[in-house]
């Protein structure tokens, strides 16, 4: 009886699984179909007449400049996440260990920023970035550090509060200054939080569309900007190129996921519980 029951559950889960994979499969299949057959019959397998080989991929790569968009996305994501991890962990340690009115205010300002939606600061932030010459990929890293600081400082602070201060004092007595104490003692202890912060920010920045579009969109393309670019002025879309580019943008995400799956799942759970 009981065995029977778990068989039904297994089949049910398999069905749900198929539902989850179905959209990706359809996109993959259509990326090999000639563009005129995609919208009309998206659920039919490509046949001799509708099969387009790799032409959608060649078309799409030429139209969007996908490879340079990939490099831009990679550069911005890696540098921003690196900056966020390094600087917010230092800040969190400082404002948790040095207690005065100013650090307290700073902490609450960071926490407050977490509930403010992007649209609230969208227009003024873009203007500020223009005035300060931050409207380039390097400047965007500064913007991401500033806008992403709230959650990251909050998470690192939560962790620092749990580190016994005696460990740091011992390092100081042994002659370490604050910088060596932080990098040799505190930062290595923070590793679990560092992974969580890095994962959460990677997922955000890699997929972010509006912020990079408004700040650097006129000169540079990230992957989401390149995809959105395929939608023409009047909403007309080259479906062939679109399908191919969707496939190409999913591939790096899936590879990243399969490589660091354990960290990602742990990271999002830890991030959710603390955030």
């Amino acid at each position: 009886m009981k065995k029977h029951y778990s068989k039904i559950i297994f089949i049910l889960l398999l069905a749900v699984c198929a539902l989850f994979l179905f959209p990706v499969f359809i996109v993959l299949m259509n990326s090999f179909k000639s563009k005129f057959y995609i919208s009309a019959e998206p659920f039919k397998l490509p046949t001799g007449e509708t099969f387009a080989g790799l032409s959608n991929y060649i078309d799409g790569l030429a139209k969007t400049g996908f490879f340079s968009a990939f490099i831009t996305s990679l550069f911005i994501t890696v540098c921003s996440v690196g900056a966020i991890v390094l600087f917010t962990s230092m800040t969190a340690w400082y404002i948790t260990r040095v207690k005065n009115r100013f650090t307290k205010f700073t902490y609450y300002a960071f926490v407050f920023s977490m509930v403010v939606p992007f649209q609230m600061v969208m227009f003024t932030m873009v203007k500020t970035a223009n005035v300060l010459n931050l409207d380039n990929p390097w400047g965007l890293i500064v913007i991401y550090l500033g806008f992403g600081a709230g959650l990251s400082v909050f998470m690192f602070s939560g962790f620092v509060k749990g580190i016994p201060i005696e460990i740091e004092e011992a390092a100081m007595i042994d002659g370490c200054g604050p910088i060596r104490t932080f990098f040799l003692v505190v930062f290595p202890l923070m590793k679990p939080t560092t992974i969580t912060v890095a994962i959460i920010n990677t997922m955000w920045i890699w997929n972010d569309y509006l912020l990079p579009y408004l700040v650097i969109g006129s000169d540079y393309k990230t992957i989401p900007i390149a995809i959105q670019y395929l939608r023409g002025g009047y909403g007309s879309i080259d479906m062939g190129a679109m399908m191919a580019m969707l496939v190409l943008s999913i591939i790096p995400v899936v590879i990243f996921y399969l490589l660091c799956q354990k960290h990602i799942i742990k990271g999002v759970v830890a991030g959710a519980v603390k955030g």
Partner: protein
Amino acid sequence: MRNNLKKYYPIFALPTTAAFTVAFLFPFVMGLYLSFTRFTTISDAEFTGLSNYIEALTSKDFLNALWFTLKFTFVSVISVNLIAFSLAMLLTRKIKGRNFFRTVFFMPNLIGGIVLGYIWQLIINGVLERMGVTITFDPKYGFWGLVVLMNWQMIGYMMIIYIAGIGNIPSDLIDAAKVDGANSFEILRHVIIPMVMPSITICLFLTITNSFKLFDANLALTDGAPSRQTAMLALDIYKTFYGTVGSQGIGQAKAVIFFLLLAAVSLIQLKFTREREVEA
């Protein structure tokens, strides 16, 4: 030691605080101020009192976006959490392929909103093709399209949090309930649900705020069509800023209302579910 560390402010705290001021603090204060003015480039701001707020709250597009967002949030929060919780219940049993299922269900969460929007545009248009229409034909298609998309994206994420919550329930608690003669439904109702209340708090918070703030997928899936009827708040604000000349002040006022609404809804929800959390 603390005095020693204090002098290191420029190294430890200044970079983050400076970036934070540039990217958040200053724009926030400036945005608050500009919502009471009429402007196109900030330097030409002219104080106009509450007129932006009055125009925002009487704007048909904004009210429509507000209603659409509330409806969307309500439907998706319920469906995402029900399905995610059910899957979590199934996947905490001893079942073969548990890890595989978990991996697959979580995967869509990593795909960005723009890409998600175009994937679902293809699928939904393909289904509607039989009726000879597309997703932008009627706002209800866009609405349900967004709900399906949101479910596909968020279910796996919420499921992972529920799995962690259910896994933390001490098994002797459930055994004790069984000895006392409770059936499966009673165990779910009186043991499991109260014990995973912290996870429910988190999941509701995440689904509410994510549904409320949805932008990328909305832009890609329907771009508000037909005629802004499927635009949610974030998209409506964006279009007010960048789509119409001279209405930036109104856009900023809409953004302030959006922020206050989001803060109010999430604080009420947190308070409401936190009160229902119990100790083991």
